[in-house]
């Protein structure tokens, strides 16, 4: 959706905390993100899931670099506010713990990479400290940044007593590559390629968010067939990654037969992606104006090939997933492990399968327009217990919904999908383009701000992992060290999407 300069609501920086708290009392409202354009203001995106709209609030910092933090009354803002200090040298005063979200070495601490004045003096030194747990027999267990398998890097500091984890401290940011800044430097037509690399396991969702946000600023509408092709892409990605996550859980639990079958079936889901887009990760497929395919793309041929692969894949998937979840060992191990109660999930604004596993029926596929979901009745997959088992069951249910959605979407011809809409040369000036997409990890937001010439001055990517990392750290408290990998896997969070 598009938000023009005159639709922005100005809120004094001292009132922000109060206003936001009031607004979030209504359960239909959600905090989308808190950020800044160039360090001179605080920007708050508030989503209204009932009206299906978004509102942008701007709080001018009046030349100062401080404002009263909103985290003390709206805890879910705490990660966003930590980011404000890292990237803009803005100090949210009264923040309960203003620790950096990056590792020390990610970039020079004197630099405010996204601020107008990059060498703007920091209000105080950055904080990288770990919370210390003291007492008899307490010891610290450092894990990472380089992990034992083939996983992205991040550092975990576990304070344990015996075999029990008392506290987990996260240090991320090892993958900070300057993506958001680079997105303001490259031509907007190329931005989709970099957005895909924000987190490549979420390539289709990121490309879709980029396209929706840019299309809002270009004021164009795309064809229904192209929308269907995009929706198919998004669901194939969800299918492939959920299979990978459930398979990863099978690996961590030592269930080799199901793990191996799932990794083979994931190969088939990737084959669907390749049939549709030419890329196993759906890269380069979704673009502003429609979809991008080679000139020899034949919609009907692709649809038939996808349909037959889909028919082959779905019974095999049902069988292996149910064998896995019916296994009493699996149930016993995951039940009550890494529990996140409903109230906590709400307080920290969790998104995606992690939220739905704690009973929060938030799925942006039903609330925000992003594909053809409005024609397909969708029930968010819900579980109540909030443990690792619930998160796994939500994924299993979502694999089944994705299979059903794909079946419906593949019924009609894709022949005209390739005809993309011609793009205007420039973006609408002084406006904001907002896209909210349900990636497989949950609510993904792209926000693009343009200046008076229509050039991109700020590109914000809010990966779903940003909301959920705290929950992972809380979930492992009082669990056994041996359950840490299981808890971590059950959240399956992105490092690259968080670090950018």
């Amino acid at each position, binding site marked *: 959706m598009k938000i023009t300069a005159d639709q922005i609501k100005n809120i004094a920086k001292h009132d922000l905390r109060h206003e936001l708290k009031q607004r979030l009392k209504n359960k239909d409202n959600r905090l989308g993100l808190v950020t800044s354009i160039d360090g001179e203001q605080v920007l708050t995106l508030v989503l209204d899931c009932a009206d299906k709209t978004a509102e942008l609030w701007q709080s001018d910092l009046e030349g100062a670099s401080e404002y009263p933090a909103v985290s003390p009354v709206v805890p879910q803002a705490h990660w966003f506010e930590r980011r404000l200090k890292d990237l803009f040298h803005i100090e949210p005063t009264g923040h309960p713990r203003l620790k950096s979200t*990056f*590792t020390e*070495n*990610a*970039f*020079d601490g004197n*630099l405010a*990479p996204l601020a107008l004045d990059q060498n703007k003096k920091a209000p105080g030194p950055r904080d990288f400290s770990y919370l210390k747990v003291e007492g008899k027999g307490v010891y610290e267990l450092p894990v990472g*940044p*380089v992990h*034992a*398998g*083939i*996983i*992205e*890097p991040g550092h975990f500091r576990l304070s344990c007593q015996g075999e029990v984890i008392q506290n987990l401290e996260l240090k991320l*940011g*090892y*993958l900070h*590559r*300057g993506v958001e*800044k*680079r997105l303001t*430097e490259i031509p907007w037509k*190329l931005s989709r*390629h*970099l957005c895909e*690399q*924000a*987190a*490549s*396991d979420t*390539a289709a969702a990121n490309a879709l968010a980029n396209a929706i946000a840019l299309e809002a600023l270009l004021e164009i509408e795309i064809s229904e067939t192209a929308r269907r092709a995009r929706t198919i892409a998004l669901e194939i990605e969800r299918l492939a990654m959920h299979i*990978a996550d459930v398979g990863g859980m099978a690996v961590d639990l030592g269930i080799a*037969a*199901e793990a191996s*079958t799932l*990794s*083979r079936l*994931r*190969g088939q889901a*990737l084959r669907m992606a*390749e*049939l549709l887009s*030419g*890329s*196993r*990760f759906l*890269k*380069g497929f979704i673009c502003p104006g429609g979809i*991008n395919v*080679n*000139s020899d793309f034949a919609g009907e041929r*692709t649809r038939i090939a996808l349909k037959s692969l889909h028919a082959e894949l779905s019974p095999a998937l049902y069988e*292996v997933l149910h*064998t896995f979840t019916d296994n009493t060992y699996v149930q016993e191990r995951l039940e009550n492990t890494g529990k996140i109660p409903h109230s906590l999930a709400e307080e920290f604004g969790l998104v995606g399968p992690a939220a739905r596993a704690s009973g929060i029926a938030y799925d942006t596929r039903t609330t925000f327009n992003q594909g053809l979901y409005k024609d397909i009745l969708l029930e968010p997959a819900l579980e109540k217990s909030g443990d690792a088992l619930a998160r796994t069951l939500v994924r299993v249910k979502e694999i089944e919904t994705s299979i059903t959605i794909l079946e419906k979407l593949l019924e009609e011809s894709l022949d005209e999908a390739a005809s993309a809409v011609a793009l205007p040369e420039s973006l609408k000036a002084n406006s904001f383009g907002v896209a909210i997409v349900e990636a497989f990890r949950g609510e993904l937001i792209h926000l693009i701000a343009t200046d008076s010439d229509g050039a991109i001055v700020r590109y914000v990517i809010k990966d779903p992992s940003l909301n959920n990392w705290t929950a992972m750290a809380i979930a492992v408290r009082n669990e056994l060290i041996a359950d840490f990998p299981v808890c971590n896997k059950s959240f399956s969070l*992105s*490092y*690259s999407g968080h*670090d950018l």
Partner: protein
Amino acid sequence: MLKSLVRIIKAGTATQKEILPDQSPESRGLPAVNRDAWENRDRERGYDWTKLCPTGAITVRQSDSKDELDLDLDLGRCIACGLCPDISPEGIIEKNLSTKTAVKNRRDLILSTGQPKEKTSQNPAPPQAKENIFQGSVAIRVVSTGCSACDLEVSAAFNPIFDMERFGIQLVASPRLADILMVTGPVGKGMQKALMRTYEAMPEPRLVIAVGSCAISGGMHGEKNYASTGGVDAILPVDAYVPGCPPHPWSIIHAVMTVMDHKQLSK
């Protein structure tokens, strides 16, 4: 248990029998330069189309020897977006579906219409003396510094379909046990120290493989910025490069076979 067994027996062997097959025709593969098409091109048309490459991997330059123009295509920067085979006139750039894409020398990733360069990869003898000690079996340690696509494809190379382990290639959890360091991603400053320490912890002789365009050149992230070093070879000696975004699992297997000098398979 019984169910699982029945399924496994019914599924049979999922592993691909053909070694290093071409990618399927639907795939975008990587681009290649068609020299004949370049020589017979319509010279009036201009070269504006080369500027559409998102990473600037295609350049037209004055030829070294004759009064001509040459076209260079740097696969080390290519993100396989699939645009150039479609936008290049007269089929100058075509689709290459081969999975045998890994090279030992960075220069071999630059496809040029200029004088046929001798493949430098065959020339210098491997530094480990005549008999390459990595020929029999190798252990790999993977360090990810990127967006996870390459990591997923490295994992996929070990899955039942590609099954890299059948070639004597093993994944290890400690650098102490590793012969090969596989690096993905553009190596952000945050990962530089951890990557160096992993490398230093490996026993010699050791090899480094750069997987994917970010690891080779920074890719879409650009050559250098405030947070990124723009490629592995800025800080470590690299023994093999695998282009792609991400490279196909078979190409990753090809890279390992290339540094192993695997007699039949690395060609």
